[in-house]
């Protein structure tokens, strides 16, 4: 059982505020991912939770207890570092058992706990090795094992997969998700990789410039980004943005004029704007469809074929649009194509970057990740 609460957390580094008042609530057993571009403060925030970085102001509460002045080891947390930070002069077993050795746990009990963690992570055969005799993925597992052995109330991960190659990263991602099910622990995970965030998180915290841009489930962030930054940050390739002029704005929809003359009515709450305003229209590449009767047209400049899907870069009215289409499309560079989108898929952002609220919530937004993986949980029990 562990919950975490951050109340108006601020971090000053020599007069520069790097964390500018973060509020957050992490529920028991939740998998929370901090995501954001480099320098957004996500690692600093994690290190403050860990106790490796002091808090300039605000409160950190773990299970309702204020932890600001409590030392890192006494907070009941474990951290997995980006560099793994294994002790190079110790064997895998000693690495994993170091915390227990410091806590003066008897040798037999120590060994038992290390073996248990090694079993979970399939490290039994490597216990006598030194870290330099391990592969990257194995080192990663030892680092996780070291965290497990302490039986922490909350696991902290600081970009743990970024030093692994792509294939291994995917595999470790799945292992981590499995581990979360098995250990049933609260986990906080920092990454700049939005795919990791989307696939693993119950809740994503998008950070930029030391402030929280949005907190929500992966599907909420994807379908209902709170502002233009989140919309652009989540999803790959990036969302297309173009400026559009408002023709008519009402509570039950906003009518906008697309470049090239087409008119679209987007089902968002338009009570805050009026005809003549300029809004930013955002539409994800995967929501644009090739359509001979579509309102937009342009020439293909680049084609990226990934096999299953193909990305088309289309020059349309001075803007470059990205479309993600079927892998089977036979278009070539310089072909002229027409395309369009379903109005409900479009997003409108006001001048301050805030999104106009969609009238209907996407049905997947409130499906919890656990329900997606109900079968896994059933298998385990």
């Amino acid at each position, binding site marked *: 059982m562990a919950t975490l609460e951050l109340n108006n957390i601020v971090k000053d580094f020599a007069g520069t505020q790097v964390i500018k008042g973060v509020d957050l609530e992490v529920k028991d057993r939740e998998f929370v991912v901090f995501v954001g571009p480099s320098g957004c403060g996500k690692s600093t925030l994690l290190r403050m939770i860990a106790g490796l970085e002091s808090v300039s102001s605000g409160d950190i509460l773990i299970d309702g207890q204020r932890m600001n002045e409590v030392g890192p*080891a006494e907070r009941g947390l474990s951290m997995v570092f980006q560099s793994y930070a294994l002790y*190079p002069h110790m064997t895998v077993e000693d690495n994993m058992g170091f915390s227990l050795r410091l*806590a003066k746990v008897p040798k037999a009990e120590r060994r038992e706990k290390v073996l248990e963690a090694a079993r979970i992570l399939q490290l039994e055969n490597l216990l006598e090795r030194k870290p330099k005799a391990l592969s990257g993925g194995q080192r990663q597992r030892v680092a996780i094992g070291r965290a497990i052995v302490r039986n922490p109330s909350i696991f902290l991960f600081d970009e743990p997969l970024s030093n692994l190659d792509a294939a291994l990263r995917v595999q470790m991602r799945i292992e981590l998700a499995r581990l979360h099910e098995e250990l049933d622990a609260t986990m906080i995970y920092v990454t700049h990789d939005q795919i990791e965030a989307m696939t693993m998180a119950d809740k994503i915290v998008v950070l930029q410039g030391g402030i929280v841009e949005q907190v929500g489930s992966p599907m909420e962030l994807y379908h209902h980004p709170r502002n233009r930054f989140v919309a652009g940050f989540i999803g790959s390739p990036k969302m297309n943005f173009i400026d559009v002029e408002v023709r008519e704005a009402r509570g039950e929809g906003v009518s906008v004029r697309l470049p090239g003359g087409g008119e679209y009515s987007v089902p968002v709450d338009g009570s805050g704007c009026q005809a003549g305003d300029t809004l930013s229209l955002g539409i994800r590449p995967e929501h644009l469809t090739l359509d001979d009767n579509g309102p937009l047209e342009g020439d293909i400049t680049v084609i990226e074929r990934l096999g299953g899907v193909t990305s088309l870069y289309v020059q349309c009215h001075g803007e470059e649009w990205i479309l993600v289409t079927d892998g089977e499309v036979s278009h070539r560079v310089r072909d002229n194509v027409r395309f369009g989108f379903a109005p409900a898929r479009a997003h409108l952002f006001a001048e301050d970057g805030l999104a106009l609220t969609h009238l209907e919530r996407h049905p997947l937004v409130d499906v919890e990740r656990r329900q997606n993986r109900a079968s896994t949980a059933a298998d385990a029990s």
Partner: protein
Amino acid sequence: MHSSITKKLAITLLAWAIALVVFFPIFWMILTGFKTEGEAVATPPSLFFEPTLSGYHEVMARADYVKFAINSVVVSLGSTLLALLIAVPAAYSMAFLPTPRTRGTLLWMLSTKMLPPVGVLMPVYLLFRDMGLLDSLSGLIVIYMLMNLPIVVWMLYTFFKDVPKDILEAGRMDGAGTLQEVLYLLVPLTLPGIASTGLLSVILSWNEAFWSLNLTTSSAAPLTAFIASFSSPEGLFWAKLSAASTMAIAPILILGWMTQKQMVRGLTFGAVK
């Protein structure tokens, strides 16, 4: 192909030439130690002669070599251990908890090495006299420790800086206090560096002559004073002086030769990485 062999040959010859020039005085000294006083001053010097141990016998008869040697060992090891004991925490805080003044402090420490020791002889002598440290092993240990401390701190600092901060932080997450961090993680990780630093400190202490000559007379005098005692005002006795010198430098030379791999690795640790 041909020119590269010529070049290699030239470089090899040059290296040997330089090495021989550098080694010659030591070679001459060792040789002279086995001559009689007459042969020692003969011109031209004889390269082929009947070696004799008479110089060594006389040196041993005139002074208690073992006592001087023990003093050297005690002072070198004592000052080195003391220096490490002080320098490890100092270098730890400079490497891992730097402040804006850390760099300046390091430079200031080094700058004390630029001062000629004779410049502070008077105050040090008076301090030692008043504190009763003249001609005492503890006094010599303290002054050698102070003499080597800047270099020891600097070297440890560079070794410590190469230790990823993450590893110590992982230790802290695992429940290690500062002392445990240093003892269980930092020291084992930098042991090669600490060893070569210690070796250098031992060698520097062993070879130090200025302070030992000025601050000791008999009971705490190390081997450097032992050598000096054979250059008497009544005239130099080359053979005896050489024998004494050979005996004084032999232990440290052997130590240095045995540990040269360690030393080179330690001294170039930060530089070539």
